[in-house]
């Protein structure tokens, strides 16, 4: 096993495999923003407090400023840029509809934390939402509209899930007939 301060790093970001030569000390947040030009992930503090840098790594929300890029080797990263799929993701739509942002600086991190929550718990209570985003600081909104945006998204995702379930059942009936 080699001892190195430079590495060839491969990971999957928003569904795309990427490979770059990097230094050990490169933070994941800087790798995303500077090596991959994915500047949706923001850096809002130097103290791992604000959560503006939140991304989803291997299915878990993490502060990308508090990890080295090399630690994500072979892993799967989702950033804000990967959410829209032709149309806005329900979370993005919710933040639009419910005015869940003002300056927008905390928003990508807020949305990625919310996505992690809804991936684990599709029908969260308001308390559960507030607990889940307690690692993301917002200086503009007072959080009320952020919570409403996440509730909107939860509702829309549930409706979508029910609709595709119904569609799948109809299809099964047709094939059985």
């Amino acid at each position, binding site marked *: *096993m080699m*001892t*190195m*301060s430079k*590495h060839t790093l491969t990971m999957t970001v928003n569904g795309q495999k990427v490979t770059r030569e990097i*230094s*050990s*000390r490169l*933070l994941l947040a*800087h790798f995303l923003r500077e090596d991959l030009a994915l500047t949706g992930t923001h850096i809002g503090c*130097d*103290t*791992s*407090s604000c*959560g503006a840098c*939140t991304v989803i790594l291997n299915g*878990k*929300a*993490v*502060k990308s*400023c*508090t*990890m*080295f890029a*090399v*630690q994500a*080797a072979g892993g799967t990263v989702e950033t804000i840029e990967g959410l829209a799929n032709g149309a806005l993701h329900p979370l993005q739509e919710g933040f639009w509809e419910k005015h869940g942002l003002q300056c927008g600086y905390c928003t990508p991190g807020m949305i990625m*934390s919310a996505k992690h929550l809804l991936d684990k718990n599709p029908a969260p209570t308001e308390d559960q939402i507030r*607990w*889940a985003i*307690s*690692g*993301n600081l917002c200086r503009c909104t007072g959080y009320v509209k952020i919570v409403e945006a996440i509730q909107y998204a939860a509702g829309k995702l549930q409706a979508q899930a029910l609709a595709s379930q119904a569609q799948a059942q109809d299809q099964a009936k047709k094939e059985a007939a």
Partner: protein
Amino acid sequence: MIPGEFEYHAASTLDEALGLLATHAEAKILAGGQSLIPAMRFRLAQPPILIDINTVPNLEYVREENGHLAIGALTRETMLEESTLVQSKYHLLADGARTVADPIVRNRATVGGNLAHADPANDHPAVMLAYGATVIARSAKGERQIPIDGFFVDIFTTALRHDEMLTEIRIPTPGAGCGGAYLKLERKVGDYAISAVAVQLALDGRTCKDIRIGLTNVSPVPMRAKGAEAALRGQAITPEALEAAGQAAAAECEPNADLRGSVEYKRDLTRVLVKRAVKRAAERANAA
């Protein structure tokens, strides 16, 4: 800010990690990194070599065996929050895990790292002191059991030797009539404690048969409030006994004045938190 340069090794096995520790005296273990990386970003820590143990299998577990709860060093705080075993039977630990930093940090932060980093502001030291836990330390030469009372030696310093790694923590399984609680006051979610108190006690009817109290962030080294314990051990838990214990803890802790409060404020907060934590632990003991 940007950390200094270092060599990075991702260990594939525990033996590999221990071998690297044995060979490189200045190497540091990288677990959750939620304390170490912020320190490196401020260049308060500049380890020339990091050994990443996130790639070592079989270090994340929470299970009861042989009369104790065994927690693997790499167990994430979130895992403790989501463990029905911990939530139902180890209330002090459940309370403590929930208050570490914030939910995102808790996805990476580990119990082992929280203890080995030995920051007096970390939460698990007081929790483990109250539980009377045992640390399992492994090196290339073998295994050692370190009782928690001898584990925290100085500020940011544990009894671990340079070539040793914390691999497991063992909490004695509480019996009937036992209860615990962790109460922390922080300015906001994610901050360190202004003060925090960990209590684990055993009741015999209304009498406190035994009690251990750990304090967070009111001394340079994680400490037990032994004066407070003495005020309650063998006593009925009355308002007078609680006040005596609170006052003892306030007197024996050694807080620093800082942005979180003055010395007087932190002492008095400790007094109040000791009383409330003992009360809650006793309520849980009665319910158990």
